[in-house]
């Protein structure tokens, strides 16, 4: 067989590889070992990633690192919340974060700035709607968001006393999420 003939076989071989892969996925879905739709929970039960974030200028609060997070978590569970001023769902969950902060739950804010999208309105947004955060870090380029496996904003993580991620919410914290998930978890890991 000449190399020219091999070249013509190439599409078929690629198809065979792709077909085998898809078959394995479907088989995994039937067994329940492969779930492409489930929110990735790779980090749940694992320590929070390591990072250091600069402060949000104008917010009057320092930035923070994963070390600060762990130190705060030793006193009780903390929340890490990814937000941006251009995101509507962030505004929807915002009153709940304000209430939680008022109740004494430490909320660490990460201002999400990925995909070349800057967020110049963040400080103004916090001034206008209230600032629930103990500290605020700016995630330039979205590196930390990637380490957390964040889908987008808003997204919230609960970290327990050992510094382990126990829960993640991709999307806004609504009344239901607060009552059914978050409050029981905050009680459990207190």
């Amino acid at each position: 067989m000449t190399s020219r003939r091999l070249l013509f076989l190439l599409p078929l071989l690629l198809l065979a590889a792709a077909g085998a892969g898809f078959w394995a996925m479907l088989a995994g879905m039937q067994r329940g070992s492969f779930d492409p739709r489930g929110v990735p929970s790779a980090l749940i039960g694992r320590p929070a990633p390591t990072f250091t974030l600069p402060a949000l200028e104008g917010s009057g609060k320092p930035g923070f690192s994963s070390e600060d997070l762990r130190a705060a978590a030793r006193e009780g569970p903390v929340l890490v919340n990814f937000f941006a001023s251009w995101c509507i769902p962030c505004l929807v969950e915002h009153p709940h974060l304000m209430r939680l902060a008022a109740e004494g739950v430490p909320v660490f804010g990460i201002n999400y700035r990925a995909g070349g999208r800057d967020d110049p309105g963040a400080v103004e947004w916090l001034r206008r709607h209230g600032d629930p955060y103990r500290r605020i870090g700016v995630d330039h380029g979205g590196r930390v968001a990637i380490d957390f496996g964040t889908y987008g904003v808003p997204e919230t993580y609960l970290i327990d006393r050992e510094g382990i991620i126990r829960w993640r919410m991709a999307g806004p914290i609504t009344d239901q999420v607060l009552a059914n998930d978050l409050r029981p978890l905050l009680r459990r890991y207190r």
Partner: protein
Amino acid sequence: MIPELGHYALVLALMLASVQAAVTFLGARVGEARGAMLMAAGLSTAIGQAGFVGLSFFCLMWSYAVSDFSVANVVQNSHSLKPLLYKLTGTWGNHEGSMVLWVFILALCGALVALFGNNLPATLRARVLGVLALVSVGFLLFILFTSNPFERVWPIPEDGRDLNPLLQDPGLAFHPPFLYLGYVGTAVSFAFACAALLEGRVDAAWGRWVRPWTLFAWCALTVGIGLGSWWAYYELGWGGFWFWDPVENASLMPWLLATALLHSAIVVEKREALKVWTILLAILTFSLSLLGTFLVRSGILNSVHAFANDPDRGVFILALLFLTVGASLALYAWRAPALAPQGVFAPISREGGLILNNLLLATLCAVVFVGTLYPLFADLAWGAKITVGPPFFNAATFPLFFALLFAMGVGPLLPWKRGDLWAALSRLKLAFGVVAAFAVVYVAAIDRTVLPLLGFALALWLVLAAATDFADRIQLGSVPLALSWRRARGLPRGIVGGIIAHAAVGITVAGIAGKGIAPERITLLQPGETTTIAGYVIRFEGTHPVSGPNWRGTEGRLVVLRNDREVAVLTPQRRHYPVANMGTTEAAIRTSGFADLYAVIGETAENGATVVRLHFNPLAPWIWAGTILMAVGGVVSLTDRRLRVGVPARRRTSAPAAVAAE
């Protein structure tokens, strides 16, 4: 009774399709003379098959129209209170019904080939029909064994569970049929490619037969994708029009390859070159259409697109995909090396330009393919959960798109066989000058962001290059105006269609670039408060409840003021569909044709303040105007005299008429 009739019609169609595959292949094998009878039988079975699938489809539609809740499919996707239009469109708003529509269109295309393919060589036509019949058999088996739309339920429920409210919308109601037309149209090119491999012969005439089908598929895909993105723009409420969602990508990939195929078929037709590549493109285009079907319906992809997901069905479609694509690629590996290239060509020439076009489009398709499927395979291979989102796609595709758009302006000006790049570029001197002047003014006066600037410049470049091409062809300015006019009317429709489509791409690009400089504002407003965007003052006048036949909702009232004068009232809504228990947002859009003012309302907080999101999108309507114009270009090109296959009688009579008119 009607549903059973539909069911039996499907079974009969399956029988006919099996017979069709057998007689056509056998007839072509025996030979043109001795197999004539068999091949003729293939024609009537193709027409009969289309009739029976059509009957079945209309039976299903009837069940929806009269809200026959003894049919499980109707119960799951309809409701007696739904407007009649959406009852009818609900027929294909679900997995089972859409598959019937899919096969119906496929059978219809087969019938068209049978009816109007008189000037095709008999064996080629028979083999094309045979391949189409095999595809039909596969999909009919799939419907009958895993997705029977006519299944009855007992006891009969009082009312249905309603269609996904997102689908109860004119834009989305007609988005799937156009996409299916496109996907199925690529099946015909695919059948031609397989038939050519079986025949062992590809010539200019083959290119001429494949082109109209590809063009037809391409037009339908263009309109389908355009409708989908328009819907996303006004219904999803985020002001975006393209999200690089896996299912969007699944429709974009066949479109990219169909575009490449469209152009490479020209090379086959004019220069008898690129045959082997064109055949591969035809096979791959249809393969990607099938892949889209598989990904959407197996539940493998995580997406906003709602379809019943079922791994069992996934296994069936995968097997179907594997057999169809595998068989055609095996045939390709076996027979294609024998198709020796004939044309020899220089890199700088029209065909060289078309090869560049093919390379860029195929690379774009590969990038989208990798970005869409990589997360799945990474998850499978090493359990890594990753998402590949717009940042990857934008970064990876923009440079390719920019190169493609620039080359698109120059390519049509290059002559066949051997071209002179400098001569072509010097014909575009004026266009260059205008674009450069525009860029300077734009940077000075409007905005300095690089990507939108590049987008606008390339958009203008494309329109001017298309205009230059047109002006040159009719020798505008160098001959008297009357003669130019006569030349314009005498231009082949294929050329005119191409010029329209290329300029239309420019218009779409301008719209997309406009999104890059669009200001947006999200605020929490109390009734009576105002905000500003792009020189408009927006006064929020509160919300009030509204309701429709099968939904209730909240409507916000926003008064738009310019220079203290009221210019418009925007009434965005949030709707809740109680039966389906789902919500939708209805954006309020006021368009001037050059810009959209776009408003969405979000949740109302406890203190009465409501989240209001405003966008000012310059040139946004052009995105879809350009899309429609692209399809218009395609249709104009389809009416080219040389593509009117199968109507030799009319060609003979129309030719003298055209002379008489001149």
